[in-house]
């Protein structure tokens, strides 16, 4: 993927961040967070770039990227549907909500729909256990007490452009 040529301004943004924090010890994870925020995921080129900038072996950067669930080595959908599979959500039927999302979108977990609009991610406890089962779309749109019946409506809202459209 030719990220380097087409995303010069993205690299510039990353450079600015690295410049600010590079003197702090153990800053790799924070840089990876920023890079993922900028690029959406962490392609190999970006990992190599960060390794060079921070003076670390690529193997170490890659080792950290693959250790943590949060870092993605594959692209994600425009709308990331995160389904909480914490205990409270599980006993309230989150597994069935998950199944319905995958069925409606015709994808596997972590896979992007052909139109690039959605990907479904099982995630760890989101800490909103009282509203179980909980689904989070993107970073802010929380849905509580979700039943399988609500799934198609949730998806349709984002096909139209968002929760409040």
């Amino acid at each position, binding site marked *: 993927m030719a990220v380097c040529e087409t995303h010069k301004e993205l690299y510039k943004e990353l450079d600015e961040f690295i410049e600010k924090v590079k003197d702090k010890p153990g800053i790799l994870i924070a840089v990876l967070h920023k890079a993922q925020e900028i690029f959406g995921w962490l392609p190999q080129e970006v990992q190599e770039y960060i390794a060079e900038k921070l003076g670390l072996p690529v193997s170490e950067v890659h080792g950290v990227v693959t250790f*943590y669930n949060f*870092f993605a080595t594959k692209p994600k959908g425009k709308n990331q549907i995160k389904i909480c599979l*914490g205990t409270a959500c599980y006993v309230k039927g989150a597994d069935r909500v998950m199944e319905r999302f995958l069925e409606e979108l015709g994808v596997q977990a972590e896979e992007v729909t052909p139109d690039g609009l959605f990907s479904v991610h099982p995630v760890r406890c989101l800490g909103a256990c*009282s509203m179980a089962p909980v689904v989070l779309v993107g970073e802010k749109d929380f849905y509580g007490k979700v039943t399988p019946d609500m799934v198609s409506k949730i998806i349709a809202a984002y096909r139209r452009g968002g929760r409040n459209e």
Partner: protein
Amino acid sequence: MALTTNTILICAGGGCISAGEESVKQAFERKLKEFGLDTVVKVVETGCMGACSLGPLAVIYPDGVYYQKLTPKAAEKIVEEHILKGRVVPEFLFEGEKEKLTLKEKPRGAEEIPFFARQVKIALRNVGIIDPMSIEEYIARDGYFALHKALTQMTPEEVIKEIKESGLRGRGGAGFPTGLKWELARQQQSDVKYMICNADEGDPGAFMDRSILEGDPHSIVEAMTIAGYAIGAKQGFVYVRAEYPLAIERLQKAIEDAHAYGFLGENIFGTDFSFDIEIRIGAGAFVCGEETALMHSIEGKRGQPRVKPPFPVQKGLWGKPTVINNVETLALVPPIILRGASWFRQFGTEKSPGTKVFALAGKIKNTGLVEVPMGITLRELLYEIGGGHPQGKQIKAVQTGGPSGGVIPAEYFDTPVDYESLGKLGAIMGSGGMIVLDEDDCMVDVAKFFLEFTVDESCGKCTPCREGTKVMYDILDKITKGEGTMEDIEKLEKLALVIKDSSLCGLGQTAPNPVLSTLKYYRHEYEAHVKDGVCPAKRCKAFISYVIDAEKCVGCTACARVCPTNAIHGEVRKVHEIDQDACVRCGSCIEVCRFGAISKVTPAVSSTVAK
């Protein structure tokens, strides 16, 4: 600052946000503006108020009236009636108030509502009461007074002595005496020491740390600074999980504001003590809650644990003496310093003084956060505060301590909640998550759920945990699929004990607990799966069938239309039937049947539809 006549506190905790708090807040603000009241009525978003199942919640001050389950329409009506005309709006009053309230009576304040009345809020003293973004409001609630007292009137040794005498123990789960930990770090000779706050709240079902960070971030800043003074550290780190962006944002603001007021940074309160705090964000690895793994992660490495000793107080972050305390533990520190150890000891039990925050979730009416004195019984906690089962069913057990903990069956509900008592039952206090289970929850399935979690989260460093938990999971999977044998159950138990003894860190050592505790109390359920082909809770798909009761079915075709595999046959207004070979047991039919004609049976039945 303009004088205000009323203040509207809106709960912006995780539960209320997912119930639509944002639109309620906007409705309040819109309506206030419409009446020109926006200058005299203040709308404040607070941290979690605790009664999450009734969200979105709001309290109107100065009256102290609680409103529940708000909608934008309800918010508009409250502005029109309550704010403008001084009349409460009965239909949205907090649970249990409605029926008793006559128009002349004053609605009850928090102290009279059972859910709140039994609680003692120390760690949560400000959560849901102040604007977490305002340092002034924190100061108004005695904020930073404890830090001032420690720095100007106490030596570090005296601070440690006070915490030791209070008997405060780590609220992250293990219950290590906090004062002793500080003392051990104090005694270490080193030019650099570190103070870490462990905010990597990973136990599924626990959200008290999130609530404190989001609802009262200054309490952590203050407590860490006190701890830094006590142990002789100049630098603190808060390690927060990436799943809590709001907590990170508010903590960052709190750190900046504390700097501006001179409560953080160089020469705090004009003394020669200097301290600073930096936030480090996790990246989704459960094992990073383990202290040595957490430190590796702060160092920017893979978060793998290492052998202890040396303990972090000896060799911690970058090889320097380090104290790691959990969020809730730290939140208790300022009140102890300010009001004294004996004040703290009036709550709780001899060996477990003080209070503990619990997160109630699962099959319970009042899901949410509660802070109660240690030593309260599970029955009081679950029934008097938690309100029992939402549909009045029997509660079967409660699961505590997440993937490291165990289940406590209903017959032990008179056990006092403290570190020792729960340990004796084979469960643990853990971080305080309590998942309530009922008759529909299969104990083998619950054990499998937790094992799946640990298999996924095992860091892979030591073999018993990496390979052993996988083998345990496979056996559980076999049992829930109807392929298990009695030897499998024995093998499972043996393996669990080996993994417990031989794993490197807390994750592996406690990973078998869900299996061991369910085997201890619910062995018969395991055996029912293996010997009788029955899942008593009717949860495991291999052991159940959906059947239609011919007496109740009216032939509305709703089930047949919703069935994803077209397994339901029947003509309109005639009794329908399910083809068991085609049925995938998704449960959609039960949801849509309005006549209660469909039920689950165990063991599974063979198909009755003639081909």
